[in-house]
């Protein structure tokens, strides 16, 4: 059995918006092991985004515990969380979130800069990672000189470059046409095959089907959590 990377216990998140209190998560427990390929699904308002922010250490829970590789993340301060995000988590966003005026290479180098890696090592590693995602000939291109699929590849390279424990992809194909989306999903599949842990947040069952396990959220609670073989009818869940 692979070791547990993420272990959350009974996490809740309460937002206070004016006079209203919103219970975005009402007690979620989840374990994710190394080299899992997990999809988190759910309609809007289900707490999917909140859970993703939690898993990505962008936010801290109101109650409950979160252990990342055995470390208690729920008690960490901003800078400690920044270090965890830098070393352990690779983010892939729906809107790519590349720095518009920087080349692919500089974009991919960014997490290494924050990690304090020497510039030569940094450049070499960033270039290698870009080659790995098939962009060896686009190192000096800026985002506006790249297609959507290429941009998302740069973003994936950026997520990979620091050898993180998990890759957290939030609707990675949401801004891409279906063919390009399929290519990106193939890339993620390859990464998974190479031993990476991937968490996919999506509302599209077509996309979630690529994962090996699907967690379905509704109203801040986990409605179902099963491997995709045992749960062939994801569509049924998505529809209801």
């Amino acid at each position, binding site marked *: 059995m692979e070791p547990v990377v993420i272990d959350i216990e009974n996490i809740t998140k309460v937002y206070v918006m004016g006079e209203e209190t919103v219970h975005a998560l009402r007690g979620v427990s989840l374990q994710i092991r190394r080299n899992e390929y997990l999809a988190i699904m759910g309609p809007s308002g289900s707490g999917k985004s909140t859970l993703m*922010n939690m898993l990505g250490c962008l936010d801290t829970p109101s109650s409950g515990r979160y252990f990342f590789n055995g470390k208690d993340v729920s008690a960490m301060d901003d800078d400690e969380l920044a270090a965890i*995000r830098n070393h352990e988590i690779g983010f892939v966003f729906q809107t790519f979130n590349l*720095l518009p*005026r920087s080349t692919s290479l500089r974009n991919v180098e960014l997490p290494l800069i924050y990690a304090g890696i020497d510039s030569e090592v940094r450049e070499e590693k960033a270039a290698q990672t870009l080659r790995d995602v098939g962009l060896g000939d686009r190192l000096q291109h800026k985002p506006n000189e790249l297609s959507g699929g290429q941009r998302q590849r740069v973003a994936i390279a950026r997520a990979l470059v620091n050898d993180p424990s998990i890759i957290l992809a939030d609707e990675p194909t949401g801004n891409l046409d279906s063919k390009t989306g399929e290519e990106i999903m193939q890339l993620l599949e390859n990464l998974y095959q190479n031993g990476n842990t991937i968490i996919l947040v999506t509302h599209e069952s077509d996309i979630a089907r690529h994962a090996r396990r699907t967690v379905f959220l509704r109203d801040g609670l986990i409605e179902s959590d099963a491997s995709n073989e045992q749960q062939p009818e994801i569509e049924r869940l998505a529809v209801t």
Partner: protein
Amino acid sequence: MKRLIYELNESWKIAFAQMQSNKTRSMLTALGVIIGIVAVTLMGTAITGIQTGFDKSMSILGDDVLYVSQYPWARVNDWWNYRDRREIKTEYAEPLNRMIAATPNSNLVLAVPTSNIVKNVKRGDNQVTGIFIQGTTAEYPLISVVDFNEGRFFNELEVKGAANVCLLGYDVADALFPGESPVGKEVQISGQQFRVLGVGARQGSFLGLFSLDSIVIVPLPTFKKFFSAKAESDVRVKVRDKTRLEEAKGELTGLMRRVRALPPEKKDDFNVNEQQAFKSTLDPVKNSIAIAGLFITGLSLFVGAIGIMNITFVSVKERTKEIGTRKALGARRRTILLQFLIESTALCIVGGLIGLTFAYTICFGIAKAFPSFPVEFSFALVLVGMVVSVFTGLISGFAPAWSASRLDPVTALRYE
């Protein structure tokens, strides 16, 4: 530590890239700083220029020389009380020197009389008007700085014999003998022929009021022979130790009272002056000009700083999503804080450099156009200018940078 250096390096790159991609906006914002720096440095130049001119003028008076004269140098409100004083006679020098010699450990060294009158000086058909004619003894160079372009001062023999010899100030020589050496040639003062012994080096003007180069020095007996009517005299006394000027002043006052045979109940009917008297009159004026000037020009820099602050706030707002992304990738609060601080500082440094270049050009132009105007552009001023720019950047950038560093990553990422 290493990480900090990479972050700083990265921040500078971002800052300059940011400026390049927003050229117009950056230039307009920097313009505020440019104007501020130009104003402040020009004011600084003017102030140091005034100070230098002042000090130079003061050093001509000599900081170790006391002047015995009828009027005090400091401004007084009751000048009529001094008007009827007995005049100062050049003959006082002799008894003063005798008494100084007789006093063991005297703080005074030597008394030299001078007598002054304003006359016209002619050479053939050429005439210069309003020239200070000064009569003095051969010991004059011992108490005063006398630099010669050429020739020499008159000697004891020429003084004793009341010879018709003279020394010309730079301007006088220049006006009467353009392009030739006056030494050995003759000039006319009040119908008398004087042979020129030497020409003084250029000294400039005293506080910009009158030129120290419009002067002719003649031996005192000669002076008395021809110009004694309406001449004003003083006695200049050199002090041994200028750190003990007050004691020397006291001693000289005592000696002068004896020379003047003043009974104890009478007040002094003369003044012992020194350059300090000028200083104490002029320093407050000079200082208030400096403070007022720097305050007013400082305001323009302050307005520039507000511009920088504003644009940095705009920049933070525009790039909220980028800040979120950077935080997601592992940027710490410090990283974001530094990034925006450096952006505002870089703007101010660019503004400061351009401003200093402008200020330098303006100073250079002024110095070329008006050589007498005291402007001085120093390395220290460049340093101060740059330090002020950096501080302006840091201070004006701090509030926006702080707000950026405190942004919640989730909110920032969601910002459109």
